[in-house]
């Protein structure tokens, strides 16, 4: 073992040096000879027919290489964008996937929908020419609210989806749940909206397509969280290039948060245009395009009813949700409000009866897909606001109500598919209560009151599901892909190691944590281990990084490959040292016969593997092993978050003054990186709770199209966090990892909102709790109930 760098060590991030000195290599940094640039003509209307396109002025514009339209795209048999997870409605009908062409042919369905691509010698010339393209539109009525889109007479976004309904999906036992609610001593009912968010990765999306006519081969450099899946989808569905003639490279990527999982029209168009024009074609979004076209997150409108018996035990939980999926079905959009949402509605609680209905709806807005947490924040927000409100309505301590309903025996089968393998919910709550010094909250509240501030405290006991798996299970639920991960551990003759992983790091620090598990296990220096990812020519295959899966699934694959390497190393050493294989141990950079001074250094074994001079009979030379690891179950990170806020009653301005997180992520590889994930996640959650909101006007214009109107959290919006860990190792994978990438964003919004509603004495509050929203809620609470 090498404890200084192994599991549990706070190793500084290897990759940070190149980022800090400005030497990261992002897609837009890559330049090819003969490179041209794409600019997109986008719809200014939320909904319109495309009547005609006059490209003559653009074609004559300086430096223009080509002006490409949707009609040409269809003629070249480029396929429509697809959603890769099939959902079936309660009546047995399949989801209704409307056609989405990378360039619109006859209709545009949201502001920003791409219509024409202009390829020119420079970005400025491309953009200038794009402004000269004349598109004639016939405007159609638009609808932006999903609830309104379901009303009779609403504008129709896709002809094949009457009433804009994509699917009407259910899970759980409706009759039993309604019966549970009827028998309840108390029922809490709330309407809860989950605000629409823009992902805002620091690096905007970018693509560089290179076509080699001699080989008929394509290379796509792009901002992707999963380049192998991108290659698969681009070749199998979009028909831009055969899989064996397409290399996808996702180099350094500056943040994703889900938005870079998907294939977008721009990458498809660049690949196609590179073949059409014989030029390398690059496109990099500006921030306006990012706001207008990156898949948004959340946007749920929910009515929830939770019943309790006289002792506060939950008797039934019914959730009816309308999910806005925007104008088209993005790659994984359908699974987010279904299998990543309703399956988590049991929370940390032993609930016998749960029923959920989800209606997914088309609107004239940007497509909505997974965003940090993806369905789980929406579920957690509903459950945890319900629990807090119910406790207040029943005059119970909100922590006590939760504790009374906690699941305490594992494994636990919920009524909504999930089987929780392990957890320690009471211990998590206790750790948070202690760390947050809840006992002294009344004194802090009184002190705040003397300063004219309303101080409140709010809880959130979240659970989420990471490492979505196993492949056979997700396949049976409609997934179009398997959800395993692959790794190859290649020990070089000199003993250095290259790890090829199908995970992709776009901020997570894999180059450090992945190396730690190898350095620690074999006792090797960190600098001798390189982590290679993001290139379909170098890595055998991979499913990419999202859903907090890289630790639980990606690292498990590496462990499986390491197991095979170690087994071979032991065989080689046993043979050379003339010892029994079972007596060989690998530690401290050496391969030893246990209990003796006989050993070979690590590099002596690796060299022996490659010289092949003295190997056991029949053994192949070389020292390189791979694995495809398919997990047995999801993992279930969980924890308790406690927020304290102070509200200025005169302005509604809210400050989060304390925030405590007690998380159970199972084994921590690098606690510093884990804490960074928690910090970032909570900041995003506070952003959602207080600030962030995508707003469309009634006619579908994006009102929050820049940072002048879309409010991101800044350093002074967040307090210094108190972070605790409790640990129940995950039994389902070799390292006991549960995943930590999304928890902060999942658990924090309800804690913050519960704290505000506590402070102001009004449970009826929606996100984002901006000053005017909070101020109005304070006034509503002060007003005597109408007609009471």
């Amino acid at each position, binding site marked *: 073992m090498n404890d200084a760098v192994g599991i549990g060590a706070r190793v500084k991030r290897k990759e940070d040096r190149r980022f800090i000195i400005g030497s990261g290599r992002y897609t837009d940094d890559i330049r090819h000879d003969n490179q041209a640039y794409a600019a997109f003509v986008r719809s200014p209307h939320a909904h319109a027919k495309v009547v005609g396109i006059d490209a003559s002025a653009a074609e004559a514009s300086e430096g223009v290489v080509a002006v490409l339209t949707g009609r040409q795209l269809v003629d070249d048999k480029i396929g429509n964008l697809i959603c890769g997870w099939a959902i079936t409605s309660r009546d047995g009908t399949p989801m209704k996937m409307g056609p989405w062409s990378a360039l619109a042919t006859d209709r545009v369905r949201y502001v920003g929908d791409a219509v024409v691509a202009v390829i020119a010698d420079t970005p400025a010339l491309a953009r200038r020419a794009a402004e000269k393209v004349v598109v004639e539109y016939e405007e159609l009525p638009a609808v932006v609210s999903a609830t309104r889109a379901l009303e009779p007479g609403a504008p129709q976004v896709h002809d094949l989806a009457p009433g804009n309904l994509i699917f009407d999906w259910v899970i759980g036992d409706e009759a039993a749940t309604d019966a549970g609610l009827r028998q309840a001593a108390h029922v809490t009912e709330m309407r809860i909206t989950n605000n629409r968010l823009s992902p805002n990765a620091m690096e905007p999306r970018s693509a560089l397509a290179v076509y080699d006519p001699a080989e008929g081969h394509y290379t796509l450099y792009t901002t992707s969280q999963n380049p192998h899946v991108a290659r698969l989808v681009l070749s199998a569905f979009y028909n831009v290039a055969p899989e064996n003639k397409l290399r996808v490279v996702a180099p350094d990527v500056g943040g994703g948060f889900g938005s870079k999982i998907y294939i977008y029209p721009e990458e498809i168009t660049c690949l196609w245009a590179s073949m059409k024009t014989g030029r390398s074609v690059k496109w990099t979004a500006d921030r306006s395009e990012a706001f207008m076209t990156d898949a948004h997150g959340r946007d749920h409108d929910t009515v929830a009813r939770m019943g309790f018996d006289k002792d506060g035990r939950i008797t039934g939980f019914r959730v009816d949700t309308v999910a806005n999926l925007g104008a088209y079905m993005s790659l994984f959009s359908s699974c987010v409000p279904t299998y990543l949402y309703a399956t988590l509605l049991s929370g940390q609680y032993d609930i016998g009866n749960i029923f959920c209905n989800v209606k997914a709806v088309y609107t004239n807005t940007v497509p909505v897909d997974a965003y940090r947490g993806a369905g789980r924040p929406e579920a957690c927000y509903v459950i945890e606001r319900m629990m807090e409100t119910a406790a207040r309505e029943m005059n119970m301590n909100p922590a006590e109500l939760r504790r009374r309903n906690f699941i305490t025996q594992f494994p636990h089968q919920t009524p909504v598919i999930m089987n929780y393998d392990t957890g320690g919910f009471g211990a998590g709550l206790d750790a948070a209560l202690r760390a947050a010094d809840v006992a002294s909250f009344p004194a802090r509240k009184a002190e705040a009151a003397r300063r004219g501030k309303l101080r409140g405290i709010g809880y959130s006991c979240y659970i989420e599901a990471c490492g979505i798996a196993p492949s056979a299970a997700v396949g049976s639920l409609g997934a179009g892909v398997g959800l395993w991960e692959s790794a190859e551990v290649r020990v070089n003759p000199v003993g250095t190691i290259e790890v090829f992983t199908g995970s992709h790091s776009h901020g997570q620090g894999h180059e450090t944590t992945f190396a730690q598990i190898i350095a620690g296990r074999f006792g090797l220096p960190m600098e001798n281990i390189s982590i290679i990812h993001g290139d379909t020519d170098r890595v055998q295959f991979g499913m990419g990084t999202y859903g907090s899966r890289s630790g639980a699934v990606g690292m498990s694959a590496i462990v499986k490959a390491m197991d095979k390497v170690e087994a071979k190393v032991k065989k080689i050493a046993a043979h050379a040292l003339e010892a029994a294989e079972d007596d060989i141990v690998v530690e401290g950079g050496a391969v030893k016969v246990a209990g003796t001074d006989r050993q070979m250094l690590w590099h002596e074994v690796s060299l022996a593997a490659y010289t092949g001079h003295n190997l056991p009979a029949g053994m192949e030379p070389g020292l390189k092993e791979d694995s495809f690891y398919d997990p047995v179950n999801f993992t279930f990170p969980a924890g308790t978050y406690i927020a304290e806020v102070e509200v200025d009653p*005169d*302005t509604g301005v809210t400050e989060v003054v304390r925030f405590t997180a007690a998380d159970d992520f199972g084994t921590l590889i690098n606690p510093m990186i884990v804490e960074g994930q928690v910090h970032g996640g909570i900041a995003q959650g506070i952003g959602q709770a207080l600030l962030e909101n995508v707003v469309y006007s009634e006619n579908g214009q994006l009102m929050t199209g820049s*940072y002048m*109107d879309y409010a991101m959290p800044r350093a002074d919006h967040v307090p210094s966090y108190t972070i605790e860990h409790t640990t129940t190792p995950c039994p389902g994978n070799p390292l006991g990892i549960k995943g930590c990438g999304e928890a902060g964003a999942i658990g924090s919004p309800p804690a913050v909102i519960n704290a505000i509603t506590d402070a102001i004495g009004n449970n009826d509050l929606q996100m984002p709790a*901006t*000053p005017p929203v909070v101020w109005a809620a304070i006034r509503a609470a002060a007003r005597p109930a109408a007609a009471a």
Partner: protein
Amino acid sequence: MYATTYHRPSSVEEAARLLSGEAKILAGGQTLLPAMKLHLAGPSDLVDIRRIGALKGIKADRSAVTIGAATTHFEVASSPDIRKAIPALATLAGWIGDPAVRHVGTIGGSIANNDPAADYPAGLLGLGATVVTNQREIAADDFFTGLFSTALEDGEIITAVRFPVPKRAGYEKLRHPASRFALVGVMVAETAGGVRVAVTGSGSDGVFRATELEAALAKSFTASALAGITIATDRLMSDIHGDAAYRANAIRVIAQRAVGSAK
């Protein structure tokens, strides 16, 4: 950004000569350059006046503070003379944008743009300042004429702003959550010419004087004097960040705090 020709004149006269046709003054560019990047503006020429020595610097005496038009917000915020003579003005400048904006943006650029949520218009109007141009002097009461519009004529260049030193003044601001412009910004001042209250961020026609607040403060320059006052909503804007009713309440609250912090 469309192609443009950049000029760096060394005098106001040279700058004035360069201002013809589609030329624009560049006085920090914290609004103009983003607009150009978005292709919302495409001036043929940019006349950068920030290096003109005559437009820079701060002069203060017992009765007035004069700030050159090309003086940055950072220079105003950190000026010992201004902190002593009109601390509210230094506070206001220190709350504009972020450090990057404050080190580049200028007072002349800000008021010539007259963004309805900018801080300086409230500073000038509340303190009863005078705008000095290469042609004349314009009282703040006459200078701000509506959303993004001023009394400046074509080719007229602001050279300085002169602030009379008030008996006391206070500036408070409710920041716009995204842009950090003023959602509500209020300058209150007790001046030789009476009490003045100017409000930015809220007026549907830009910065304005809140006469109902001025009347109450003229009787008693105390926060409690404003307690019962309701601000009319008819001249206030409603947008996704706050409706008129919210702004009306906030104007009174922020004015009270400005009175409380006035010195």
